[in-house]
């Protein structure tokens, strides 16, 4: 199945190459090309895509500003000619990093890797959906970690953190890491107690100690509130 994408890139030659590579690969469908972050965010406000090809340095806001403002978690491939952004890419849990100018071969490797991740995540999610696992309104869930299914009480969970192809569950006693996406976990944790506060974090709002500025504090952990999530956080937590 083709991945849908948008291209966020201010240099036309670079955007044209990307579009051409997407067509040539026959694995990615380009839904739009945007020259700046503001136009891309306006599109993403009402349309969802599977994948973003995202330049970093553009007029106005940067690619990282866009990532801070996203309200959902598409796959991200950063495209830039600066290797210095590799560390930031790691921090933002992007899926790949393509240094411009890149060849079709490099592009194809990136997309194939992404397709494999998507297929693997879907294969893992499918058995859980059909197994006699508890529905989202029970007080526990099972996660696959350390070669077994571990029962976690929802009330024990402080927060979840996205780590590329994995999700880390943080409890007061210990952490658990499972091969999944934050989006999958969001669906399992539908309810009044869990809230997505950043593209990479879901918190148990009953465990929040306090909020200072745009940071949530839970038992010594600091969780950032993403720009695109601030309104919902304020609304859900009844912040006056």
């Amino acid at each position, binding site marked *: 199945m083709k991945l849908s994408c948008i291209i966020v890139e*201010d*240099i*036309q*030659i*670079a955007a*044209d*190459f990307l579009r*051409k590579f997407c067509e040539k690969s026959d694995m990615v469908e380009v839904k739009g090309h945007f020259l700046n972050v503001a136009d891309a965010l306006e599109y993403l406000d009402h349309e969802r895509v599977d994948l973003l090809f995202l330049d970093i*340095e553009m007029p106005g806001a940067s690619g990282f500003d866009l990532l801070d403002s996203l309200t959902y978690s598409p796959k991200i491939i950063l495209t830039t*000619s*600066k290797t210095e952004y590799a560390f930031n890419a790691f921090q933002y849990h992007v899926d790949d990093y393509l240094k*411009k*100018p890149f*060849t*079709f*071969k490099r592009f194809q490797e990136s997309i194939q890797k992404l397709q494999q991740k998507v297929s693997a995540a879907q294969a893992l999610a499918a058995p859980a959906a059909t197994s006699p696992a508890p529905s989202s309104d029970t007080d526990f869930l099972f996660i696959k970690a350390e070669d077994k299914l571990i029962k976690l009480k929802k009330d024990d969970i402080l927060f979840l953190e996205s780590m590329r192809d994995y999700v880390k569950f943080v409890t007061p006693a210990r952490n658990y890491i499972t091969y999944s996406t934050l989006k999958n976990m969001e669906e399992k944790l539908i309810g009044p107690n869990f809230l997505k506060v950043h593209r990479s974090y879901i918190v148990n709002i009953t465990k929040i100690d306090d909020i200072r500025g745009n940071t949530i504090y839970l038992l010594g952990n600091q969780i950032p509130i993403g720009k695109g999530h601030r309104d919902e956080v304020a609304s859900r937590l009844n912040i006056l």
Partner: protein
Amino acid sequence: MANIRIGFVFDESLNAAFLAELFDGDTIYAETVFEDFLRDLPVYWQRVDAAFGNENLPVLGTCVHTCKTLFGYVGFTDLQELCQQFENKCSVSRMDDLRDEYHLLTERKEKAQRVIEKEYNRLREYNEANG
């Protein structure tokens, strides 16, 4: 004797091996990219000149960053590297320390532009002859 189509060989001052992989024999697309380069570079370099004239180092770095990418797509990978070094210096140096390098970069840019103009014309002729 059958006519044998000889592949297009890029100028030796370009990274020919990289261009061969980038365009994968698609000389029609290469012609388009070179045409776009010749159209876009003067516009982008005008911003470089303006930033240098205004002694605005952060903007100068950003404008050179844009041109750097263009050079890469037409095979000037060494000039791309030179732009990267200059861009890095824009964030740590004073304007006076960068003047000589700026002039060197400008000369290299002009030389690159002449090479790409020539390559663009050669590509057009090649594509017309083999179309």
